[in-house]
């Protein structure tokens, strides 16, 4: 099999000295859509922030390879230039900086060469249209005064402009109504080519009706405890998380007894 796009091996991460991730293993190949599910506090967003390189998250063990390169040694902007994109759960506002100015600067940093002003305007216009947002957002300050849903849509506008190799969507569905989830999902599907890897982080199965994952992983207590296909998501929807917690608890007990 070809070289994986992303390989996470035995990843341990602490925040302010407190261990959050306790040995995550996950491999994503080009063209694959993975869903990462789990309850609040299970470590999903910690994984997303760590992959992007947030300075608060300290990797205490393990490795992350992106196209074979050691991601953990890369700065945040280098990871972006390598092709990793994170759609934030809580995008921050950048007052005084227009969306257009921000994205122009971003594209220049990512690709080196400058798009012509006209090409850029047209591309941005097309993305806004696809996300059902008025063009006027181009001159608004980044995320300032945006509703929750508008922020999430703007993340996908950015994904469309940037066209990453790996897109990590951190609870992009939260804060969106049913139509919003559908529009955002359709656009993720459009932007993601057959070479793009996608990691969808979510509580709910809702978004997975539109972005259909090849693999579903369940995270509990900082580890991936179950992996399966789409049917695992359906099962979670039907039965909730408790049965997994019980099974995992039983396994741990057995392990301890054996050990």
């Amino acid at each position, binding site marked *: 099999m070809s070289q994986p796009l992303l390989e996470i091996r035995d990843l341990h991460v602490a925040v302010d000295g407190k261990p959050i991730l306790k040995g995550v293993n996950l491999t994503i190949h080009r063209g694959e859509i993975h869903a990462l599910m789990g309850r609040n506090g299970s470590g999903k967003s910690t994984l997303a922030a760590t992959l992007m390189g947030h300075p608060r998250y300290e990797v205490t063990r393990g490795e992350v390879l992106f196209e074979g390169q050691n991601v953990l040694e890369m700065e945040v902007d280098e990871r972006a230039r390598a092709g990793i994109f994170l759609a*934030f759960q809580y995008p921050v506002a950048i007052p005084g900086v227009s969306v257009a100015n921000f*994205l122009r600067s971003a594209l220049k940093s990512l690709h080196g060469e400058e798009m012509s002003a006209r090409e850029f305007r047209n591309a941005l216009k097309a993305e806004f249209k696809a996300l059902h947002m008025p063009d006027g957002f181009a001159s608004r300050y980044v995320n300032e005064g945006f509703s929750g849903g508008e922020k999430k849509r703007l993340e996908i506008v950015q994904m469309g402009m940037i066209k990453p190799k790996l897109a990590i969507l951190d609870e992009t569905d939260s804060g969106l109504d049913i139509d919003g989830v559908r529009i955002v999902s359709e656009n993720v599907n459009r932007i993601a080519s057959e070479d793009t890897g996608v990691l969808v982080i979510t509580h709910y199965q809702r978004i997975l009706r539109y972005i259909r994952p090849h693999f579903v992983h369940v995270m509990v207590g900082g580890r991936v405890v179950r992996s399966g296909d789409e049917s695992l998501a359906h099962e979670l929807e039907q039965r909730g998380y408790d049965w997994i917690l019980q099974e995992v608890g039983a396994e741990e007990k057995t392990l301890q007894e054996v050990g």
Partner: protein
Amino acid sequence: MGNTLMTSPAGLDLIDGISRHLNEPEWACTFRREAWRRFMETPIPSPKHEHWRRTDISHLNLDSLAPSVPGSSPALPAWLEDVIRGRSRRIGGTLAFSDGAPVYNHIADSVRRSGVLFADWAEAIQRHPDAIRRALEGADYDPADEKLTAMARAYATGGAVLIVPRGVKVTLPLRTFFTVDGARAVFPHTLVILEEGSRVTLLDGMLSPDLSTPVFGSGVADLILGEGAELTYVLFQQWGRGMEYFHHQRAVLGRDSHLTTITVALGASVSKATIESVLCSPGAVSDMLGVVFGDGDQHFDHHTVQMHMVGNTTSDLLFKVALDERSYSAYSGLIRIDLGAQRANAYQRNENLVLSRHAHAETLPNLEIEANDVRCTHGATVAPVDPEQIFYLMSRGLAPRDAKRLIVEGFLQPVLDRISAKSLRDMVSEKVDQKIASRRL
């Protein structure tokens, strides 16, 4: 430039000499003498005085400083010519002064035909003596700044005068530039008189390259707004390092007039400015905005005054300060609402973005409110760049330096956006961005 500089203490002879050279009427000479007397009699401000606590000038030997002798004829420096011609489109007129003498003027025909007076002091006082006399007689001396404003009024040699006749709306913005080119001291004076219902935008530029020997400056701007007049006044300060510059700006707002002042402070080693709006008739509105960007060892000290003398008046203020390296900024703002000035609205906000561990910002709001039916709010923040903003921008590929630069530009931008004349806004934004871009951050 072949200027002869005064090195001996200036006397009345010098004052009379300036007045004669400018061909001033006798009342103007009397006015100068009075200013000079006040200058000589007022002691240099002590650092113990509240207004001078953060900027100590007790070491300055002010008595040894005087303007270039009138009669010297400086030329327009080439770099300033570039500034003027670089953005001359959509400009209604430009005056430039070097070492206190007029060196350039150009006024668009449309502006000239509308009856606007935009001229250097000597020409203006011949053409509109009565209006200028009334304005000067109404000019007050703020006790805290008396020493330096009296000095500026006594020694002002060049100086720009703008008088917009009743009902005339000047659509193209006007500019003045003051620079130094060898002089040890400079005394810019700007007088703006807007008659009833008139409207204009003026950029008052104070700029120079870095100065190899220290230069002292004291400037005054008098802004007078008649009933229903609208003035946008941009004070653009980009003196070179080596300048110690002091500025007193006082605006008097008539009934239903609207003043927008935008103070942009980028330059000088030390600069201290008092920016005052006096709302003395109902319906007057004052919007005061400010942008400061400091680096190196720069020292900025801004004091604003929102003076509500009558009710039904509104003042708003937003001062944004970004500081890098070892720079320092003090902002102090007074809102004063007199007894009887009911239904006045006054707002004040000062935000400081501190980019370096060694930079320091102080903010000191002060309210003196004697009326009881007013709306008044004030707020201030001093904060470093938010690391979450940096993370967000870097996650889109921006290098840390570019991320920080974008955040600083964005922080200052909302104030620059308030310069409605595009030609001026572009010029000022470009200068601000250039200074930000020159930093390592």
